[in-house]
């Protein structure tokens, strides 16, 4: 048992941290207000730090980080700017990930080097009628010679507006589970329209779009891993995505605790810094404790994956705990800041809004509890 980072991991973390603190942190509030995430920033993360290819092997132009290193990067990104962290995480885990894990050689050669260095990937599973019950999706893909013809409506597509590729799940047969297939769709394909831009509580700078497919013709070679593999691909990648969202929650929680500690040392009431009052000191202690537990669960899940061991239950535990802890921690951060916590002069107001979605996307807390309980009960009767 060893909770320490090794030399490489520390170096990676420090490199990311200093880049973000110098180049990104000073501009976050401005971009959040404008609800804008400049593509220029992503370009620099891709070209200077290789973050476009975190899960892409070196032979396809990526940097091939393992799951632990991946979490370290996402945590650092989220500590500075949650909207940026989700953009980078989605691109890697479900934008590039499906091609890395399930793509054929031609698809890998065609898409991965571009995604690693230049392009941005998105993922499109949810529909207005299907979220947690993913297999209830209705979008269709009908084979027509050398093409599939896609029709349907998708929503909650992170980075939907400026992605270059979309991994799209659509129905190729009626079977609820086995009738779903995954396709690589390039932006600008005729019949693909970007529609609604969501007005969200948080992650203001991350664009969330709806997509409409209307007789959208996709080359048949863009089918990933065969007809009927869609749900398997989605669930496999979401499993991995879960500790990424957990790491994001850890990053937000850390930012909230750091801001609260600073404020608790500076702000005085009744003749002493507010941190000296037990009411505030104990909140800080609880925030720290939940953060440490979140981090340990997250890195344990990531380590299991890196070691090639089963990690589905542990990833769900990490996602469940770290995201609920983050909502709780950011809530307390506002409380410690009092009125200042409720105004946008201090960043904790943003942390609170940004944290909330982590309990929802990439599997709600309820889906995580289902996964954990099913695995426990299966073990009990085995």
């Amino acid at each position, binding site marked *: 048992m*060893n909770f320490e980072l090794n030399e490489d991991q520390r170096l990676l973390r420090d490199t990311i941290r200093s880049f973000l603190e110098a180049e990104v942190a000073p501009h976050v509030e401005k971009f959040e207000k404008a609800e804008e995430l400049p593509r220029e920033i992503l370009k620099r993360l891709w070209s200077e730090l290789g973050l476009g290819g975190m899960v892409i092997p070196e032979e396809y132009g990526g940097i091939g980080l393992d799951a632990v290193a991946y979490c370290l990067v996402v945590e650092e990104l989220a500590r500075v700017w949650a909207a940026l962290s989700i953009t980078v995480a989605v691109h890697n885990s479900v934008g590039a990930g499906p091609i890395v894990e399930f793509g054929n050689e031609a698809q890998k050669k065609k898409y991965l080097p571009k995604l690693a260095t230049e392009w941005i990937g998105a993922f499109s599973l949810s529909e207005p009628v299907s979220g947690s019950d993913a297999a209830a999706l209705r979008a269709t893909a009908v084979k027509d010679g050398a093409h599939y013809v896609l029709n349907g409506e998708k929503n909650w597509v992170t980075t939907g507006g400026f992605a270059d590729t979309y991994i799209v799940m659509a129905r190729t047969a009626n079977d609820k589970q086995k009738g779903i297939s995954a396709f690589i769709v390039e932006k600008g394909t005729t019949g693909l329209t970007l529609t609604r831009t969501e007005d969200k509580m948080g992650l203001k700078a991350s664009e969330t779009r709806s997509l409409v497919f209307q007789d959208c013709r996709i080359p048949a070679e863009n089918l990933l891993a065969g007809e009927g593999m869609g749900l398997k691909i989605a669930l496999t990648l979401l499993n991995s995505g879960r500790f990424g969202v957990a790491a994001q929650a850890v990053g937000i929680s850390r930012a909230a605790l750091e801001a609260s500690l600073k404020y608790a040392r500076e702000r005085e009431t009744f003749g002493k810094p507010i941190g000296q009052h037990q009411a505030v000191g104990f909140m800080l202690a609880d925030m720290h404790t939940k953060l440490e537990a979140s981090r340990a669960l997250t890195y344990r899940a990531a380590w299991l994956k890196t070691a090639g061991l089963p990690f589905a239950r542990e990833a769900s535990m990490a996602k469940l705990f770290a995201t609920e802890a983050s909502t709780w921690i950011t809530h307390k951060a506002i409380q410690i800041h009092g009125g200042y916590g409720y105004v946008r002069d201090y960043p904790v107001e943003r942390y609170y809004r940004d944290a909330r979605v982590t309990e929802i996307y990439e599997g709600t807390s309820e889906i995580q*509890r289902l996964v954990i309980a099913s695995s426990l*009960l299966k073990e009990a009767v085995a």
Partner: protein
Amino acid sequence: MDFSLTDDEHLIQDTARQIAREVIAPRAAETDASGIFPAENVRKLAELGFMGMMVAEEFGGAAMSTMAYALAIEEISAACASTGVIMSVNNSLVCHPIEKFGTDDQKARYLSKLATGEWLGAYCLSEPNTGSDAARQQTTAVQQGDRYVLNGTKNFITNGQVADLYVVYCMTDLAAGHHGISSFLVEATTEGLTRGAKEKTMGIRGSSTCQIILTDCEVPAANLLGTEGDGFKVALNTLDGGRIGIASQALGIGAACLRDSTRYATERNAFGQPIGQFQAIQWMLADMATELDAARLLTWQAAVAKDAGRRYTLEASTAKAFASRMAVVNADRAVQIHGGYGYLQDYPVERYYRDAKVTEIYEGTTEIQKHIIATGLLKG
């Protein structure tokens, strides 16, 4: 980063699990009902080297890591929390300070007896009028020639009625506050040492908890542990390690709650299906397992920090605060899942519920842990 157990740690865990299942669990309900100290359990633990797990081999110990110790305490406590705390006190609160602060002579006379389980130790810090505010000791030790004369009353002493040796904290200088505290090794047979009546505790009823009354109790000056005025430092250093023991005890209780509840959820039917098929029950099970694992990781983080020789006060307090709360909450959920049967002594969850509560109180209340964490964080 490495979240695996070593082969040795697996072996300790398996050994502890086996003795817990075969020897300790079958007697746990009886120990709770009778309140009789489980001497046979302690003998078995001693045979395995579990009463002096971290003590060096030259003093009869098993020279194992804190990590192995945490694993063993969890398994034992999952069967019987009373036995868990008896083991934890002997290892963490008695063997440890003697090994760390004791003279060669003290180690020769006492440590191997304690580490091999021939003797049992107890730790006397709390008093009727001082618990969390441990610096306000009222028990005194006055030097007279080559002896100290001890007077005072010590409260809530685990292993109190059966211990052979007591680590006793006293004021040697009443004017010096916490710098006036010293600790002494007092043998049970010393004249002037009296054991009070066994306390009627809510849980851990086999722990033999009582008062220790010292009346003109003369202790050889050679039994001063550390130097005069060092007592508070000895006490705090000792409690850091003790907190890993209690956190591990809480893990055992929390794990037993999950184990029994998961089994019950597959066996008990309601509305035509096992209750585990209802989300209301599944949610409780999922939260129990998640918080248990979080508590485990925090506890092990403290244990490996101690093994690596780093300062681990913050980690130990974090682990103890979280794990003890987890045990209480998991026990509450376990009773709820068992329904009416959970309220009867026919099922062990009723005992878990009572046993869990004390983990939030002894060896530093949750409030003291939060105070330590907050102070550490604000100092930065």
